[in-house]
């Protein structure tokens, strides 16, 4: 019986609940915030939506534009590092023996089982001045110093008079490091999905035709895995762009990202209209990037179909 496919009652029964959910809990609040972005703060909790563009004008202040630019730079750098690190990982999982694959994939998503806040604090414990990296470095320093003393070079202070711990936290490097750590699985998974689908005979054909491994990677693997690369870049870049916890906890005074500013508008500054405007600028840019991707991929498939 195909009747249920065209039965209106069946259609509405299945269509209504998710649609109602989406409208009530996603579109309506979003519309409200969008409305706030054209509003004005009147008193402590009162907001008058009067169609003003003042919030957007204020958002275009060089101060905020710089933070936008910095956020894009952090997100782009994070995406690039994730791609460079994630590709070898995805390749390793793809070519691992089949009984190892589920374990390796599990290890890739294992960090998701722990709260982001806890993972970030763990990272602080590793990187801080009295953290595990510095403990290790200090141990190496002591042993080196002792060894130098033993061979009679102790007086030359070749490795410095005192151990200087590395300052790894509360700067831009720490933020990008943290963002890479958090977002790497988002890159590895789509890359793995694309590579695993790739027919091995394409790689063998390339080798058979005289190409080396590097040439095969550049001319066959990358172009054929391109959909996975694009997906990985998008789903790494977008959440990285909107991060606020990582720059908040790992960054210095100079490393705040746009989401930190937005958070501050909604919480401590209590300026919802301005926060809403900043949020929507971020969203417009994201939509624009996604639309660009959709248009280019449609263009490509239209070209292939022609």
């Amino acid at each position, binding site marked *: 019986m195909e009747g249920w496919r065209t039965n209106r009652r069946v259609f509405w029964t299945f269509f209504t609940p998710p649609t109602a959910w989406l409208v009530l809990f996603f579109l309506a609040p979003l519309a409200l915030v969008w409305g706030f972005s054209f509003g004005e703060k009147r008193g402590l909790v009162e907001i008058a939506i009067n169609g003003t563009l003042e919030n957007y004008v204020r958002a275009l202040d060089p101060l905020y534009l710089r933070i936008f630019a910095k956020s894009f730079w952090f997100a782009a750098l994070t995406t690039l590092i994730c791609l460079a690190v994630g590709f070898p990982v995805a390749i390793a999982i793809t070519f691992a023996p089949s009984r190892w694959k589920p374990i390796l994939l599990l290890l890739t998503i294992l960090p998701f089982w722990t709260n982001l806040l806890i993972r970030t604090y763990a990272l602080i414990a590793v990187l801080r001045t009295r953290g595990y990296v510095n403990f290790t470095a200090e141990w190496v320093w002591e042993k080196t110093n002792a060894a130098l003393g033993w061979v009679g070079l102790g007086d030359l202070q070749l490795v410095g008079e005192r151990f200087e711990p590395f300052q790894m936290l509360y700067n831009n490097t720490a933020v990008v490091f943290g963002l890479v750590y958090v977002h790497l699985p988002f890159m590895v998974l789509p890359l793995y999905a694309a590579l695993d689908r790739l027919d091995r005979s394409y790689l063998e054909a390339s080798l058979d*035709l005289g190409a080396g491994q590097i040439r095969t990677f550049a001319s066959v693997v990358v172009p054929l895995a391109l959909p996975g690369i694009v997906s990985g870049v998008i789903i790494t870049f977008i959440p990285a762009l909107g991060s606020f916890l990582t720059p908040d906890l790992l960054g210095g005074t100079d490393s705040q990202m746009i989401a930190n500013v937005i958070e501050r508008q909604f919480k401590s500054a209590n300026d919802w209209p301005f926060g809403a405007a900043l949020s929507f600028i971020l969203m417009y840019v994201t939509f624009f990037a996604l639309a660009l991707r959709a248009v280019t991929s449609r263009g490509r498939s239209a070209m*292939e179909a022609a």
Partner: protein
Amino acid sequence: MTRGRHGIGNGTDRGAASAQPIIEIRGVTKRFGAGEPAVDSVDLEIPEGELFALLGPSGCGKTTLLRMLAGFETPTAGAIRIDGSDVAGMPPNRRPVNMVFQSYAVFPHMSVSDNVAYGLRVTGVPAAERRERVREALGLVRLDGLGARKPDQLSGGQRQRVALARALVKRPRVLLLDEPLSALDAKLREAMRLELVNLRIAVGITFVFVTHDQDEALSMADRIAVMERGRVRQVAEPATLYEYPNCRFVADFIGKVNLFEGTVRAAGSGELTLEVPGLGALRIPHAEPVRGAVGVAVRPEKVRLSHTRPDAQFSFEATVEDFAYYGSETHLFLVTDKGLRLAATVPNSDRGPIRIERGAPRFVSWRPGDTLVLTE
């Protein structure tokens, strides 16, 4: 790479093969983990210019053997020499062989021309020569004018031609083909058999192809190696393989056969006397004196039927149990008076209604010399 040394189009006759085989396989074994080896101490020599088939059921090791020639698998033991040099440790991209994959593996993101040019580009062949050779290769496989197409705009048969052109443009000493016709539909497959044979003659190089289809191997190959469970059972020309199989497996795998188990009662002076349960005693000419239990086989088309007792050395009474009409021939399934079943194929060379019916008694006979005695 010197142009035209074994370039496309300057056909060399396969009679002119040099004394040294282009491929020498010595005691090659390949194991994947524990258990039976995929390829088990195989020895083969393939002379230059031959169209050689590796034939066997799935899992017999024929594809593994081909992949060892291409360099995608490493033999566990034994040696492979291609064009006189040991290829152990030589990666696929340095071997003087090219492969046509079963799935064709035509790069979907490149045009037909770019696919064919790929192997030349990666080895730094200058652009002008590249264009000329691509044009030549596409002409050879009759794809002229389709260079700008993308693979998804081609039919299965055309994609195969791209794969062939892409391999041949490299001017390999040996072309390896993995089940080259299996992905084509039946009609196209027939046509492509002849075309591959003609292509080999045109380019004059050695073709080694893998197939599980005995008709394909018989109709195309100069010589065939029949493989079973990793071992080569027989290497021979198609007619020899069919008429003189050396074991039960080959007799059964190549063509149809009536295979009985019998015992040798007496041997000597170029004759054997066989005892086959259900048939009785058969006296047949046979050069080698063999003893003990043997397989006794006869091809269905060698079986003769008559209404009256024939004037033959031996004949049996049988009744038609079933028959199937195939247009050019009729297949009969008979059962002898002693309960032995056998098949016979009779050509329908006379036009007119056939007079075969179930239950009809017939006399069955064949020439003693058509009896196959199989010791293995």
